[in-house]
């Protein structure tokens, strides 16, 4: 009897999962439940939201049947997307309903890295984290806590924790991604919010970016549209990418792209093909640039790059002929070299020589509400989101571990919001400039993303606390002390997201279904609750995300209903706005530089690096028997985040090592052979893919494979983990360098 009472008490009480509904049971109990289920009408709805299979937040239309997501389409209300969504976006339901997701907060019970955890309530998890953080804070100071995330809507909530603690060490993943482009733009235009109008360009030179494998739906579509209208595309890439297959492939020698760009400038000046008027009216420092490229002749560049002199001259002339509707793509990828940002600057400088700024088919400054407000004729279209005010955070007591923002050093140029994320593991291991003892990670996977996987693992072992919030038991989560389960993007609403281009645009991620696993939570809630537990409630002054959205929308007059009905907001009646399309001499009042000019010579860069205009630096090339290891994206995966999603894993479960046919023949390697790829310190096994589509001195593999968390059942150990081979090497501005690793290859 006692036992019976206990069981009933335990399971019918607070611990039970079912609850009796009044008045329902008796009436329908007699029905045959199977038949009842079959006869029930299907409830259907479409929820407009935004995707998160990668970081681009493409607008989507989620079809929900009986509370279940059955299909995801692109949002047809957005003309830039036209109802289109990529393979990853289409795969959303496969992630949502994956039984391998993390379902509950977990605390490690075994050794770190043993994979032994117990599940705990959220409250226990918060308490545990709060206590550990407090201990670190007391012993080492708030700056001993580092935070890293991808970039996303969660950052504002996630980083509030670190800011409240008083840590300066908040990092984005940009240093492992296109931070060099951001710095290039910042130092030239005073802002990184510069987009390209690919759809209307007549000539497109692409330097290493791969629109057709690293898909950004709107931009990829725009490039595809341009190509279908007869735009010529030239692709500089040591590897024959899908993009290269759709244009003219120039297999440039690795790390020499800047030579190519400088030679273009040389030709444009030499043959007087550049837009002198534009340069005169809108830029400063052109003479210093002209002096710098004076000896960078096509003949010299041909030697450097391996691309013939004639080709270089031809490309320069073709660019000039199509100007101002021609553009050199500024690149959106990990960095090739230590000074990659100078390459990005040089690209933008040559673009400006083509006069392609603020005209169709060229570059333009993003017309968000803040920018439009400065243009009287357009101010009516500018609906600036309301700020969600929080009290001021305590000022960090020490500078950042990566030296970001330090005047007179190259790190002066590094955006404070991004930092040099690769510095963290180094600092943990060396304790310099001061110790990092706790690391909070949100939807980021440093074990697979910060170069040198083994080093990151070694660093993790030295921490007092590692907390990871993710949807899967990622390689980093697996090695964490506390794992927090975020719900997927289909299960949460987030704040309004600014997606402006030639017109302002706001997109809202809206919850499509209840969380599949009830104990997964959205980031805003996790960090608000954690913050409150730590006594930082004042920094989270909103009730919930709906309240947050209300505060954002309040001053704009935009109704939340717009998002429910269309999923996005753009100002009615506004046409794409280019400042110079009607008047080639229109003043560029929007420019955010101090000089109000486009800075070909940048004082800031001069101060930081001594090279106010880009200077060519030759980098080492692979020696005899060596190959340059390069990596890239694949259309069906995002970085390191989707390899365990069932449908995507099925489409591509493994990568291979591309090796040129002639080089392979010399080594007796055939497609399918197992290889040992040796980067000196580390070796990795891989499968050979002998191809004509790569330079003989280069090998390539797609990034993100060979994952090491055994709980990523599908992706675990499949393929080559290039991140193990690539050292954690930081460039001048803190950028991770991924294309300067030389490897030797032999048959296993």
């Amino acid at each position, binding site marked *: 009897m006692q*036992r*019976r009472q*206990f*069981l*009933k008490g*335990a*399971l*019918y009480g607070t*611990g*039970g*999962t*079912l*609850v*009796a*509904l*009044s*008045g*329902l*049971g*008796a009436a*329908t*109990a007699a*029905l045959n*439940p*199977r038949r*009842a*289920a079959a006869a*029930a009408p299907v409830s259907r709805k479409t929820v407009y939201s935004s995707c998160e299979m990668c970081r681009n937040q493409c607008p989507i239309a989620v079809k929900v049947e*009986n509370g*279940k997501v059955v299909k995801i389409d692109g949002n047809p209300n957005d003309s830039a997307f036209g109802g289109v969504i990529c393979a990853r976006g289409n795969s959303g*339901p*496969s992630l949502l*309903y*994956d*039984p*391998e997701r*993390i*379902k*509950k907060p*977990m605390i490690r*019970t*075994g050794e770190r890295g043993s*994979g*032994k*955890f*117990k*599940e705990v309530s959220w409250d226990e998890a918060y308490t545990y984290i709060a206590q550990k953080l407090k201990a670190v804070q007391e012993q080492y100071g708030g700056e001993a806590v580092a935070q890293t995330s991808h970039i996303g809507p969660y950052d504002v909530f996630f980083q509030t924790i670190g800011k409240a603690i008083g840590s300066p060490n908040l990092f984005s993943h940009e240093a492992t991604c296109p931070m060099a482009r951001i710095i290039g733009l910042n130092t030239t235009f005073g802002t990184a919010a510069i987009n390209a109008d690919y759809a209307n360009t007549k000539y497109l030179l692409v330097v290493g970016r791969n629109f057709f494998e690293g898909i950004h739906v709107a931009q990829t579509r725009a490039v595809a549209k341009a190509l279908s209208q007869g735009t010529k595309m030239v692709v500089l890439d040591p590897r024959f990418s899908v993009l290269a297959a759709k244009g003219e492939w120039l297999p440039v020698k690795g790390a020499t792209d800047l030579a190519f760009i400088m030679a273009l400038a040389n030709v444009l000046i030499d043959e007087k093909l550049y837009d002198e008027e534009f340069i005169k009216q809108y830029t400063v420092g052109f003479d210093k640039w002209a002096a710098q490229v004076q000896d960078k002749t096509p003949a010299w560049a041909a030697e450097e790059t391996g691309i013939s002199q004639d080709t270089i001259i031809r490309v320069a002339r073709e660019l000039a002929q199509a100007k101002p509707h021609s553009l050199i793509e500024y690149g959106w990828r990990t960095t090739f070299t230590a000074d990659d940002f100078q390459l990005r600057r040089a690209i933008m400088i040559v673009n400006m020589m083509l006069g392609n700024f603020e005209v169709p088919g060229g570059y333009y400054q993003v017309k968000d509400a803040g920018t439009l407000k400065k243009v009287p004729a357009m101010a009516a279209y500018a609906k600036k989101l309301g700020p969600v005010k929080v009290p001021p955070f305590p000022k960090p007591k020490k500078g950042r571990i990566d030296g970001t923002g330090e005047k007179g050093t190259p790190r002066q140029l590094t955006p404070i919001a991004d930092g040099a994320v690769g510095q963290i593991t180094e600092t943990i291991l060396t304790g310099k400039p001061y110790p990092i003892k706790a690391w909070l990670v949100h939807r980021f996977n440093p074990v697979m993303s910060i170069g040198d996987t083994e080093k990151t693992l070694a660093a993790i072992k030295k921490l007092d606390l590692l907390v990871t919030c993710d949807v899967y*038991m990622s390689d980093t989560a697996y090695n964490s002390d506390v794992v927090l389960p975020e719900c997927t993007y289909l299960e949460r609403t987030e704040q309004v997201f600014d997606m402006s281009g030639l017109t302002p645009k706001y997109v809202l991620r809206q919850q499509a279904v*209840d*969380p*599949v*696993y*009830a104990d997964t939570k959205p980031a805003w809630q996790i960090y608000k609750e954690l913050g409150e537990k730590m006594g930082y409630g004042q920094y989270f002054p909103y009730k919930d995300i709906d309240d947050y959205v209300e505060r954002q929308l309040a001053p704009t007059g935009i109704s939340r209903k717009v998002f429910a009905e269309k999923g996005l907001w753009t100002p009615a009646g506004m046409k794409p706005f280019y400042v110079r399309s009607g008047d080639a001499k229109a003043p560029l009042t929007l420019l955010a530089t101090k000089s109000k000019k486009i800075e070909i010579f940048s004082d800031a860069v001069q101060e930081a690096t001594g090279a106010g205009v880009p200077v060519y630096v030759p980098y080492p090339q692979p020696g005899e028997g060596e190959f340059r290891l390069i990596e890239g994206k694949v259309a069906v995966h995002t970085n390191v985040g989707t390899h365990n999603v*069932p449908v995507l894993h099925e489409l591509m479960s493994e990568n291979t090592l591309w090796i040129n046919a002639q080089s392979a023949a010399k080594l007796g390697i055939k497609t399918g052979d197992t290889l040992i790829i040796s980067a000196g310190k580390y070796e990795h096994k891989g499968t050979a893919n002998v191809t004509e589509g790569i330079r003989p001195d280069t090998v390539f593999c797609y990034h993100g494979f060979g994952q090491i*968390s*055994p*709980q*990523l*059942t599908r992706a*675990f150990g499949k393929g080559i983990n290039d991140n193990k081979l690539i050292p954690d090497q930081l460039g001048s501005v803190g950028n991770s360098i991924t294309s300067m690793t030389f490897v030797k290859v032999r048959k296993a």
Partner: protein
Amino acid sequence: MEQETAEELYLSFAGIFQRPRPDIARHLEELIDLWAQEISSSEKVFSELREFCRAFPAGEVRENALWKEYIPLFETGRVEAPPYASVYLDRDGLVLGCEAEEVRKFYLSLGYGLRSDQRELPDHLGVELEFLARLAGRGSWDAVGSFRKSHLRPFLRAILPKIRASERPVYSQAAELLASWQLGQC
């Protein structure tokens, strides 16, 4: 089997196959007594269960020991036996398939819904067993029979062999006992 016993047995298995909980862990010995009393099975099963209780005395030690088995068995990553019926009965291997929906409607037709504060998927093994306990408790034997036939038994036939094969203490033995009680085998 009398009403009370059936209810108790369903409850006991529901308790075991839900996530490890302090109260269930604390009373594990009593559950074992109940099973020994009502279900005939090999002595090995019971001795292994009792051995577990001796090795891991009630309290946090025992809870963590259960977690150690539960997570790889049911919960995260390379799970040996996902505890959701849809994973087995809907063939695409994902959760919340038709089976979950049908089970949920079954609950609804008999006047039960899932708690909103402690939501679990309707086709979780522990939930199905708890549902049967409630039906048994109120003597709805027709519904018990119908639910067992169309939902529980197909699910058990798929999942119990996996749990047994995992050879994880407590769970394997509980699966063995549940199989011999519900599927008439041992």
